[in-house]
């Protein structure tokens, strides 16, 4: 097993952990989205590492990364759409104040 792969995987794990921490601990919608981006970034690192060190001959591995970049873009678009709508309606995007979905 290559050290390079391990390094990349640890980087991915660290980014994932930081992302989870951010997504859970932030009160602001935009900051939460940043956390989610970091989580996705962690996944991306792992995918590239797997492609490079395990199956460099299969381009589908790279394709997966493209899909994740797309997912990130979608997440941004929808997240900001919601954020703008909420900001217009309530004047803030603090998620502590957003409990309309309470059961």
């Amino acid at each position, binding site marked *: 097993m290559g050290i390079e792969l*391990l390094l990349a995987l640890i*980087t991915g794990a*660290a980014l994932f*952990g930081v*992302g989870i921490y951010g997504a859970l601990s932030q009160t*602001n919608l935009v900051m939460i989205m940043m956390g989610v981006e970091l989580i996705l970034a962690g996944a991306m690192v792992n995918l590239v590492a797997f492609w490079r060190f*395990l199956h460099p001959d299969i381009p589908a591995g*790279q394709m997966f990364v*493209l899909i994740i*970049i797309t997912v990130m873009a979608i997440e941004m678009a929808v997240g900001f759409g919601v954020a703008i709508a909420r900001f217009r309606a309530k004047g803030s995007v603090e998620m502590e104040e957003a409990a309309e979905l309470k059961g």
Partner: protein
Amino acid sequence: MSAQMFFIGFFGLAAVWFGIVVFRTFSMVRSALALLFSQTALGAMFLSMQAEFLGVLQIMMMATEMSIMAIFMVMFMMDPGGLGEMDMTHQKRLSLIAGLVSFVGAVAVAVFADWGPAASVVPDAAQQTVDLGLELLGRSMLIFETAGITILTAMIAATAVAIQSVTRSNEHGH
């Protein structure tokens, strides 16, 4: 220690460091730009892993995305100088534990799993780009096109959600 290993480690460290900075700084713009540099470092890491197209793409996409994130931060947080100290976190302990646990778990899997031998031969960058293109418009076309349609839908939906409702009177009013 090969150059590749050094660069992977270096950029990985940079990415993680900037990632941590995202949640450690009080300035909104700094936090967004830290995320940007974290993603850029990732792009550099991809480059050092010989995934040239992905690296360049990552560097390009994320710069735009995170800059946009920065302006939204400023718009929504109204943080004038950027250096006002206010706490915007909650359930810190839980988050910290969750983050740590997931990190430790993932590292454990990475360390203890049997990944098999690492491949050493990689197609050169031009060949990779060609392969990727053929993959996208060949075998994975359906997936790729679905992603395209999805992002178009998301664009339209986001615009529809965010757009200000314009009534006929104030359409001509101003």
